[in-house]
Each structure stands twice: as structure tokens, then as C-alpha cells.
């Protein structure tokens, strides 16, 4: 990965997106709080903006994400499909045990790789 890092930008006060760190053709998007149907558009818009800027690979940092429902899972599935169609990828990093378990239960860990740390996810790109 490109060693240059842009400074983190706080995209929305109190929203789902905590910060976005861009690095070449990849970006780390930190989510916080809860991902329900109401937050889906915010996530999809943020990722779409990154893709328009040329970002192919997205690492979703879930360290601060407390909860995700099936609508949120659907959003992640759609993001992966969209990324792959453009030659990119979505990876998940630092998810809490409850969310790791959820991803395994739904077998979505077969679709979206999970990594223990952001660095591990970035190195896998």
C-alpha cells in the first residue's frame, strides 16, 4: 500500500461514519454506533464518494461499531458486490466478537474477509 497517509477527516458529527483515512487507492472507513436501515444510506454514500475519487479497496474499521442488523449486513453485501465489480474489495477489521460471530453465523465471512486489525486488512489488499 502507498505509504502516504492523508489525515483523517471526521465526516459527520454523531453519524455512523467516524473517520475516513485515505491511502492511495484504498481507504479505511471507521464506523461507530449502530448500523440499521436508517444508517445504510450514509454508509453507501460515503463509499460511493470514495469510489468516484478512485478508491478501489475499502477497509471497514468496526472497532467502534456496537450493533449491526440484517439491513446493515445487506448494505455490506451490496458494498462488496459493487467494489468487486469495479475491481476492488471490501474488508472488515477489528470487529467486536458479537459481530464476528454474526458474520460467521450468516456465512458472510466467506464474502467479506474479516481481519483482527486494520494493518492486517491493509496488508492483505
Amino acid at each position: 500500500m502507498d505509504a502516504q497517509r492523508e489525515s483523517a477527516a471526521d465526516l459527520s458529527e454523531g453519524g455512523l461514519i467516524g473517520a475516513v483515512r485515505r491511502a492511495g487507492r484504498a481507504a479505511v472507513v471507521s464506523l461507530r454506533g449502530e448500523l440499521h436501515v436508517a444508517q445504510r444510506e450514509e454508509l453507501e454514500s460515503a463509499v460511493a464518494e470514495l469510489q468516484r475519487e478512485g478508491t478501489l479497496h475499502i477497509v471497514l474499521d468496526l472497532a467502534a461499531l456496537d450493533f449491526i442488523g440484517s439491513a446493515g449486513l445487506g448494505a455490506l453485501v451490496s458494498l462488496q458486490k459493487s467494489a468487486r465489480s469495479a475491481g476492488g474489495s471490501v474488508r472488515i477489521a477489528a470487529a467486536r466478537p458479537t459481530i464476528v460471530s454474526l458474520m460467521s453465523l450468516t456465512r458472510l465471512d466467506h464474502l467479506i474477509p474479516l481481519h483482527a486489525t486494520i494493518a492486517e486488512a491493509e496488508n492483505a489488499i
Partner: protein
Amino acid sequence: MRVPVDFGIRDSDLKQMVVSSDLRSVKASEERIIADLVENQYDEESVFAIKLALEEALTNGVKHGNGNDPSKRITVRFYVDARRVIICVRDEGPGFRPDLVPDPTADENLERPNGRGIMLMHAYMTRVSYNDSGNEVWMLKENLPRI
């Protein structure tokens, strides 16, 4: 709309909320139940599980049962103590056949954006049962002590 006999409580033990089919109203009902879980000292993992199953049941009732029609009601009945949580969600729709919902974990269904709610309810709750019409679901979560 009677509580299943083997859930171990009486109908009169249940609290009830009737909410309109909009996100804000159902969210408030969810928060009411979560507050009881916290008061009864359910651990983080259990709260996550119950919250997830409840959200799926409410979303299905609002979206599929009531067609997102805010004039239609969702009836939520619930009971919480230290040993178990019992939740009933009933919508005003015609019902459906839960046994006909495709397995979302099958390879051919993994990339579908929807269809995981019922599977998650079964996975995270101890018991899930629907009435004959399919517009009412009862869920039980036993709070078993951790060894």
C-alpha cells in the same frame, strides 16, 4: 394471541405496547425492552442477541406485514426477568409462510441483500414460533448462567 404454554408464564404477566408502523415508533418499543434487559443485568452478548432478534421481528412486521403503512399497528407484548425474555410481535398483515423463506446461508443466496431476518431470530433466540397465519411471532430467550 396467547403466550405458548411451555414459555412458562401467564398472559397476564406480559406487558404490551401498540405502535404505528414507522421506524421511530418501533425503535421506542425496542428501547423499552432493552431497558428491562439492562435492569435485569443481561450481559452484552445476550442484549445483542435479543436486540437483533427483536429488530428483525419488528422490521418484518413493519415492512412485510404492514407494508410500511403508518396507519397500521404493530403490537408488542413482552416479559423480562432474570431467567428469560419473552417477546411477541404481531402485525396487521395477512401473514406468510416462514418455512418457505430460502436459506440465506446457502451459497446461491449469500449475495442477496435481504432474507436473513428469520434465520437470525432462530439463531439468537431459544425458541421462535409463529401463529398459523404467520403474522404473529413469539420468541423466548433463556438467560442461562455462564459456567
